């Protein structure tokens, strides 16, 4: 049996690598396709990715909702779920960090990253392909979560365009955070460590914010931290866009300009961490 040539045959001209942005876009798409296929083969990942925020919605709104006073409204399940959902959405998108970090750590240990690094492909594509696939997964989870929220009483009051803008801000934040996950995945030694390392710091980040309780109820010294938290800006912007802001917007600069601050934070995080992660990938000894 013999192999018939296609191209790049022995002694023949090798395939010429694409260059620059076109190469990165093409290779990222190939890797993203691969990761999306994996997600359809391991649906558990998406299912568990959904269960956590759904559980939070139910626990927070039914168990704690009646006890938490939202400025401008009486404590009740109904008012709290309107307040809560922007926070839950934002927390959900940041949990994409764990997916990216575990996925990349797994590729490192299985030798796949070595395979990719030995190919004439873009040095950014393995990470971009991963973060793009995670973005698709996050969008899917957001849609399902929104439907669940509608079932338990969440409502939007400002129309479809504002809602889409809010989801845009959320996905941008999630995409920026998945680059943090990429860096973690390249830095730890095992997929198990990557999962914990990807999640653990998200709890203080998401709780010291306006996501679950009004910042005005926190100690004075903590309030500026919570207001300047990148996470709070996105939550505040979404809350306003959904029409879920019951009282006045807190009198703090990042809250008054929440959409702008949210976009700037996301872009800064994305720029810094994508640069760090790609640099790490180039040097990864595996």
């Amino acid at each position: 049996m013999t192999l018939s040539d296609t191209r790049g045959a022995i002694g023949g001209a090798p395939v010429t690598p694409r260059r620059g942005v076109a190469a990165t876009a093409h290779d990222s798409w190939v890797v993203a396709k691969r990761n999306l296929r994996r997600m359809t083969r391991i649906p558990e990942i998406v299912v568990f990715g959904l269960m956590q925020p759904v559980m939070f919605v139910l626990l927070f709104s039914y168990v704690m909702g009646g006890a938490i006073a939202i400025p401008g409204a009486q404590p009740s399940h109904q008012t709290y779920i309107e307040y809560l959902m922007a926070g839950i959405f934002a927390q959900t998108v940041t949990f994409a960090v764990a997916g990216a970090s575990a996925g990349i750590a797994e590729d490192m240990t299985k030798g796949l990253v070595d395979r990719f690094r030995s190919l004439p492909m873009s040095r950014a594509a393995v990470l971009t392909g991963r973060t793009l696939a995670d973005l698709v997964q996050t969008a899917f989870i957001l849609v399902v979560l929104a439907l669940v929220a509608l079932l338990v009483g969440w409502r939007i009051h400002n129309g479809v365009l504002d809602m889409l803008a809010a989801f845009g801000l959320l996905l941008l934040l999630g995409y920026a955070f998945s680059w943090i996950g990429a860096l973690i995945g390249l830095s730890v030694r095992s997929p198990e460590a990557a999962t914990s390392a990807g999640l653990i710091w998200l709890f203080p980040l998401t709780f010291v914010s306006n996501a679950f309780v009004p910042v005005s109820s926190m100690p004075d010294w903590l309030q500026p931290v919570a207001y300047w938290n990148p996470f709070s800006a996105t939550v505040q912007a979404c809350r306003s866009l959904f029409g879920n802001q019951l009282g006045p917007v807190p009198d703090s600069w990042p809250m008054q300009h929440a959409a702008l601050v949210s976009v700037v934070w996301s872009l800064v995080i994305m720029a810094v961490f994508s640069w760090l992660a790609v640099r790490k990938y180039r040097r990864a000894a595996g």
Partner: protein
Amino acid sequence: MAAAIEAENLVKTFGDVRALDGVSLDVPEGTVLGLLGPNGAGKTTTVRVLTTLLQPDSGRATVAGVDVLKHPNEVRSLIGLSGQYAAVDEYLTGRENLQMVGELYQMSARDAKKRALELLEWFNLSEAMDRTAKTYSGGMRRRLDLAAALVVRPPVMFLDEPTTGLDPRNRIALWEVIETLVEQGTTLLLTTQYLEEADRLAHDIAVVDHGKVIARGTADELKRQIGGERIEVVVRAAGLVPEAVAALTPYAKGDPTVEKNTRRITVPVSGGARVLADAIRELDTRSIEIDDIGLRRPTLDDVFLSLTGHATEGGADEDEDGGAATARKGRRGQGKDA
């Protein structure tokens, strides 16, 4: 003949460990160099440097004439790499795996698909091509991994312990594939722990230990270097040993050695089968009863032992190959018996 792979004085340290301590080698186009050495000798590190996965601290290397350090991406389009552990995505099917690699080698989607089907057929994976690689046996995964390294028909290939952990049948099947590639002109750098594998596949062997190439030559040259052929006789009874030694002395090219317990006499000779026939006749004339007699040539095992002072599996203190060593031990026994 031009060198398809050339390395000069490669040095790489990991902390206190000098993984590569000045490795130099060259592989002429169209030939196979077997890199032989114990665990931690620097075989895998050498391959990782030559395949652009690892930057050496110093030294230079070219593959197909292209500088590995200056133009890594050009090198990548000229090489195929198949590692110790099968680097395939187990949640993708065999076909999807190969297609993805083709597209990442910058083939068009159509060409990548066509090439994937060809390779799957050649590697006897057509029937399993739409199953995820997770369901594949070890041998099938290894074949898929090797197929992935062949997607662009690279002129230079690196196989890092390609048959480690495979059963004898799969190992021989993979050897046949590798031999076909070499017949078609591929230059190959092969690392292995199986001396038998190096003996069969490699034109040239470089023995590596402690990050250095300590010997280089064809298998025959290496064997000759450590000594020639010898006759080994096992006599029926211990009392026959002195007479047998006397009978064999005229043919000896050196001092005979005697192992009393096993009644085994070893006599260095030259002249091959002729001398053996003469020796048998002489013993027969003197009516010395023998249990066994044969002409032995040194094996690569002997070469290895005499060069490194330890067997292939020994001294795995800096085990770059991870936990594979234990599994390998058992396997190698099997391979040698086969």
